[in-house]
């Protein structure tokens, strides 16, 4: 559904800084795709380019990113380049940011922030009806209706992140991009959020792209994994396959560095 064709992305016009270097990637329908890599590997930049967010001075220097979206129900197909994805935001494509303290408007109740992003056709009409639908949707993921009346500062970090996942999923999009959604949360909460995202993907049968530096997260939920290093994709394939038999040296080091419960104890190097 999304085709990234030999794309080079970077910042700046006069002095162009390459962040993503000639990348090829396909995002299929009904899958969870993980993008792994260290800080500065280009994974967030690639995600922004796929989302079509060029507000930060991002520029596609060569190659194309194209999308093909079949609308739920009608099956009407929209084809577009990522430069024009803006009109599909919170309709066909949505986005889960890292749920830091300041990602929700501190002066707005959660309900309003859910409603705010919805396409016009959803926002018009009966507000009480809409609220009931949102509440039912949230309850499906163990969030009480009272969350809708809360201000962001009244929610815990985990709650806030789950709200962000819910806001992105409520519009029933074909593609959800999640940028480090579980970073800075403890593992118990992390697990809850990962399960919530898997649940949503299984129900909506759409595509979820998960960007994270945490291989453990990828291991738990992704179907397919892409490992980036210095702006290039160094390895791609089914997640289980990569973990069982990493080909690239960088991936091998990454996987070797994960603590194993059945591993042998090694002395710390002095």
């Amino acid at each position, binding site marked *: 559904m999304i085709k990234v064709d030999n794309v080079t992305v970077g910042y700046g016009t006069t002095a162009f800084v390459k962040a993503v270097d000639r990348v090829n990637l396909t995002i299929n329908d009904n899958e969870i795709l993980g993008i792994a890599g260290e800080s500065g590997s280009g994974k967030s930049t690639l995600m922004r380019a796929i989302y079509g967010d060029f507000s930060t001075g991002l520029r596609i220097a060569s190659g194309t990113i194209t999308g093909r979206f079949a609308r739920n129900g009608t099956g009407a197909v929209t084809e577009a380049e990522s430069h024009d994805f803006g009109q599909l*935001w919170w309709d066909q494509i949505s986005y889960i*940011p890292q749920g830091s303290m300041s990602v929700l*408007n501190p002066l*707005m109740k959660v309900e309003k922030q859910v409603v*705010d*992003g919805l396409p016009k056709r959803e926002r018009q009409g009966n507000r009480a009806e809409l609220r009931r639908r949102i509440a039912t949707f949230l309850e499906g993921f163990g969030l009480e209706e009272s969350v809708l009346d809360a*201000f962001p*500062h009244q929610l815990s970090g985990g709650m806030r992140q789950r709200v962000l996942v819910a806001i992105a999923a409520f519009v029933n999009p074909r593609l959800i991009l999640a940028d480090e959604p579980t970073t800075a949360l403890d593992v118990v909460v992390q697990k809850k959020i990962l399960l919530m995202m898997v649940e949503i993907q299984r129900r909506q049968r759409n595509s979820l792209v998960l960007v994270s530096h945490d291989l453990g997260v990828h291991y738990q939920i992704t179907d397919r994994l892409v490992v980036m290093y210095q702006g290039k994709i160094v390895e791609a394939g089914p997640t289980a396959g990569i973990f069982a038999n990493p080909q690239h040296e960088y991936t091998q080091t990454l996987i070797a560095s994960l603590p194993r419960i059945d591993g042998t104890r090694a002395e710390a190097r002095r």
Partner: protein
Amino acid sequence: MRLLRYIAGRLVVYALVVVFGLTVLFFVPRLGPTDPIEAMLAKVASQGAYMDASQVDALRQSLADTFGLSGSLLEQYWAFIKRILLTGDFGPSLSMYPTPVMELIMNALPWTFGLLLTSTLIAWVLGNFVGLLSGWKPESSSSRVMEGVAICLYPIPYYILALVLSILFSYIWQIFPLTTTIRGAPWSWNLVTSILWNSFLPGASIVIVVFGWWVISVKAQTTALKEEEFVRYARLKGLGDGRILARYVLPNAILPQITFLALQIGLMFNGSLITEILFDYPGLGLLIYTAVLQGDFNLLMGTISLSVIAVATATMVIDLIYPLIDPRIRHR
């Protein structure tokens, strides 16, 4: 319950601030070497009136009673606080004897309030509007022009601007009156136009300077807010510029401005002084000026006590309405 505690807390702080201010006001004049009673007696003696010693003592005693200067310091203090807080009585004015100080203040207060409140609010609304837009689109040429204008305006001391306006528009081009003369029957249209006419220049001198400051401060707010994650998130949700500005940037930018507004309204009592003197505007500032020049001790105490109370009240009122506009305070 929590809200009640918040309100009670604010009221206690308010009372403490007022009492503290009045206390300072009580002690500061007493630290000086001048004794108003002796000064008064000397004035009487210098005018050639002859009094024998017992008459002088009687006068001294009656003046001390009138001024609240009899008894020990503590008794005086207690009487002073009680008199002001309970009865609002500052005694008669000395320079306009026997008109009570309170009456003079009450005559002047509507003028000061009318002039300063109106001009401060106009400047606040205009300044925030312009600042918000120029912070939102800092690259556009109109924002740059507005910013330039604001930067030129805000460092000008308002009395200099008042003087310049007065010279330009009532001396060189005689459009507006040089000094304030209000004409017209009470509650008539003539009176209203006369007030507006006479208040225009003093008002403008305040609006123009304060406007520049609001533009600069709200512009800085807006520029910072634009980079906030929640604004970026709203943009990525596909919200249009108008909605982001109205619902995400404006409410967050305006919050601190409301606090500043309260402080401004409190401070405007001092700010009004020279403006009112320059334009001969019959407000509190002019009254304070008269009191200082004439050595009218009661009037001075009265006007200054009132500004202490006004500043404290303005701050308290803002503190009380703040929870209504900021949920983070309301639900703490």
